[in-house]
């Protein structure tokens, strides 16, 4: 590849690529994000390549392995352009059919098309599927159209145009002005205005400055940064170069999670290609400006998502954070002024520069501009990545895009912001939640409060509601999730991830976990709830960094909205969701049809019963492992209070005998 000598040469090349591109050419794009790879898309790609070759179609059909399309639930995904025909859950055996029917004869393979689970309507095209239709993709729009390992694809789609503009039309001050005017706020969690961060760093007097991209996405249940790096690494690189031009930096780092091997691979390929073309390294596009980027693989520590800890880790040290009053924009990596933004924030920069701050700030709400990518996971029909304009309501995200809670179960809460956000948005109009708020003393009994689900998603609105945007994980929970257990889960996570430097976090979180552990085992006391609130306040006030400072959030928010569930655990010794093992007994009720499926998975041979007869769980033998609950297709396994197991089974026996006289030989 020839090195480009000037921004003009880049734009000419772009024109040439665009002209040579045949828009009508049949392109089969197969999603090869981590989600689809885990579903076996590699076999699909191999089969597809073989079949296309066999049918001698390789001249007229192009196969593209792209980054994540977002609809992970339905992977592996195959999209046929230019029409946008969308095939889901494709396996290698379907390939012959797809090629023969769709590619060669223009017919659809009906059983691979998406069928809307609620309306049962079959949808042909990607853009018409509710999951995609209701999104607004300005960061993710290129993902499905390009091969992440091809710099040519990125350039064809308008890539590096913003860089050319930053080197010719705009002066560094003007770039800064654009970023400030766009209203872009950090997408990593806090929502700090990006332009202001850049400005302070630009003003700091030092010959050496650094640019860092935080790709150590530590929040469990969030994976948008990974998908951007995997699917479109050049957009992040371009954003970082523009940032470097603005503040005058010659070295950048991408700190990426070791658990994301594909992101590391695609990013390395992209960096190499950018260097070869003269877009990165010395004398970028003949401008005399030098900037290079190095990859640093993190060692898997949640606290390294915190900026000062991340910088310590980059220096090859233990990732311990330091006090916040020394700002990293002035004294960051090796005590030099440093800008640290996360992947999604960097990916926004080229879009802002290319389309202008006016266009960008027309999207979103007054104080939150642009779009936000969320990872929608947990108990939701359409798991995947969604990019939505700021200001959309949670209801729209969860129901219009996410398709609601599966299996007709009741929505309980959605958790945002990861463990450090640890906060919940609940249906406040819900009876149980309402009751909890009354008992907790937050509202009066006759007070009617608006459902939080109708809240616009916006940095400030969410904080006002006691939640936060966070990095974009949205984990949906239904009636089967125990909120005490969820709070305990987050504390356990934070306890393990606490770096141990300051006492409130190291000891305080541990103590809180022990209290919750007691509660989930049925050994809780009413005073425990008070202790939890007291401890929380101390930890919030005295922790060194935000990991500790926000650690009590999951407890405080669940205490507020699900006070009743805590009471059930403490006073009734009952876990309403049936999750806490020590408070649960498994029992089979009358819905059992004797399918016998639960017998084999039982590790202790506690299930007794012949095929086609009512089964029964021996309460003494059962260890509450939940294996039978998982396999039962008829919802006959009930999780009840420890002393209610026998009663349920006795009643089941009576009902069976009275309803079906033939089935009297119930083994009891």
């Amino acid at each position, binding site marked *: 590849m020839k090195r480009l000598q000037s921004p003009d040469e880049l734009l000419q090349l772009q024109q040439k690529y665009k002209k040579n591109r045949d828009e009508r050419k049949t392109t089969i794009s197969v999603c090869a994000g981590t989600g689809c790879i885990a579903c076996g898309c590699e076999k699909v790609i191999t089969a597809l390549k073989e079949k296309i070759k066999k049918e001698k179609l390789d001249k007229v059909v192009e196969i593209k392995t792209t980054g994540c399309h977002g609809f992970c639930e339905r992977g592996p995904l195959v999209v046929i352009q230019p029409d946008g025909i969308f095939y889901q859950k494709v396996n290698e055996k379907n390939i012959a059919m797809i090629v023969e029917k769709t590619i060669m004869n223009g017919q659809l393979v009906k059983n691979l098309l998406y069928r809307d689970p609620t309306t049962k309507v079959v949808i042909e095209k990607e853009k018409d599927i509710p999951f995609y239709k209701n999104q607004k993709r300005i960061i993710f729009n290129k993902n499905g159209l390009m091969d992440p390992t091809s710099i040519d694809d990125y350039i064809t789609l308008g890539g590096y145009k913003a860089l050319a503009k930053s080197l010719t039309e705009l002066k560094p001050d003007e770039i800064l002005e654009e970023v400030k005017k766009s209203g872009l706020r950090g997408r990593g969690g806090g929502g700090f205005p990006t332009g202001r961060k850049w400005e302070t760093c630009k003003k700091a007097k030092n010959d050496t400055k650094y640019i860092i991209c935080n790709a150590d996405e*530590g929040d469990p249940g969030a994976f948008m940064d990974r998908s951007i790096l995997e699917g479109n690494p050049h957009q992040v690189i371009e954003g970082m170069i523009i940032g470097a031009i603005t503040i005058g930096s010659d070295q950048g780092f991408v700190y990426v999670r070791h658990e994301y091997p594909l992101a590391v691979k695609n990013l390395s390929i992209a960096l190499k290609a950018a260097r070869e073309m003269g877009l990165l390294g010395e004398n970028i596009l003949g401008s005399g400006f030098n900037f290079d980027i190095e990859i640093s693989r993190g060692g898997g520590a949640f606290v390294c998502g915190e900026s000062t800890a991340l910088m310590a880790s980059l220096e090859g040290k233990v990732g311990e954070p330091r006090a916040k009053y020394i700002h990293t924009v002035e004294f960051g990596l090796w005590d030099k002024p440093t800008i640290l933004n996360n992947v999604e924030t960097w990916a926004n920069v080229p879009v802002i520069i290319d389309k202008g701050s006016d266009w960008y700030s027309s999207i979103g709400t007054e104080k939150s501009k642009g779009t936000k990518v969320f990872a929608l996971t947990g108990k939701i029909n359409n798991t995947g990545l969604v990019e939505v304009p700021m200001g959309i309501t949670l209801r729209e995200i969860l129901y219009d895009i996410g398709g609601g809670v599966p299996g007709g179960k009741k929505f309980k809460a959605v958790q945002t912001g990861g463990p450090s956000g640890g906060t919940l948005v609940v249906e406040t109009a819900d009876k149980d939640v309402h009751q909890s708020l009354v008992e907790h003393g937050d509202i009066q009994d006759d007070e009617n409060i608006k459902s939080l689900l109708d809240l616009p998603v916006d940095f400030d609105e969410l904080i006002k509601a006691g939640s936060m945007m966070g990095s974009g994980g949205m984990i949906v929970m239904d009636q089967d999730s125990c909120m005490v257990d969820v709070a305990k889960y987050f504390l356990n996570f934070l306890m393990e991830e606490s770096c141990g430097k300051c006492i409130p976090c190291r000891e305080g979180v541990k103590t809180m976990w022990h209290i919750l552990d007691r509660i989930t085992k049925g050994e809780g006391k009413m005073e425990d709830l008070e202790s939890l609130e007291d401890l929380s306040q101390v930890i919030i006030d005295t922790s060194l960094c935000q990991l500790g400072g926000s650690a009590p959030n999951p407890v405080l928010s669940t205490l507020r909205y699900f006070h009743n569930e805590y009471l059930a655990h403490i006073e009734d010794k009952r876990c309403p969701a049936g999750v806490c093992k020590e408070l649960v007994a498994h029992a089979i009720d009358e819905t059992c049809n004797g399918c016998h499926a639960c017998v084999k998975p039982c590790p202790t041979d506690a299930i007794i019963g012949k095929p086609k007869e009512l089964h029964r769980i021996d309460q003494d033998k059962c260890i509450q492992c939940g294996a039978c609950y998982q396999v039962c297709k008829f919802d006959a396994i009930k999780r009840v209070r420890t002393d209610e197991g026998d009663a349920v089974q006795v009643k089941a026996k009576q009902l069976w005998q009275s309803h079906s006289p033939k089935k009297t030989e119930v083994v009891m």
Partner: protein
Amino acid sequence: MTTIKVEKSYDVKDAIDKIIKKYNYKPTALIMIMQDVQSHYKYLPKEALELISKKMKLPMAQIYGVATFYKTFSLEPKGKNHICVCTGTACHVRQASIIIDKLERDLNISVGETTEDGEFSIETVNCLGACALGPLVTANEEYYGNMTVAKIDKMMEDLKKPKVNKVKREEVV
């Protein structure tokens, strides 16, 4: 605890030298150097750490600190079949704990341990980012999605079958 024979000392030297050279002796690359050593041996042998300390002129205390701080590192040898259960929030609400209990019960070890014959080890990971497939398990870096207790049995059967690449791995250790 299992003991896996470490290569003869000159081999260790060669391997470590190669890895350190790849990163130009940069102290910033310490974590990545140790990751490469770990993927070579499947854990961090003491000799290797001492060599890194000597070659890179870094105190052993710093290296030990890094080795014990980050989750990816292990000072104990791992099993030939490395099973990793995702305990991200999405997997947790889809009951990853049942899967962990099942594995612990069947292999008779706890998370973080290796079976006596050195065949299996179980670990947990915070999030693998394939939340649509939760609960998710990886075995030797291969993904097994939407796991149930029954599917674990099947996975274990697969893992117990003799494999071609097993020979290769034995050559390394």
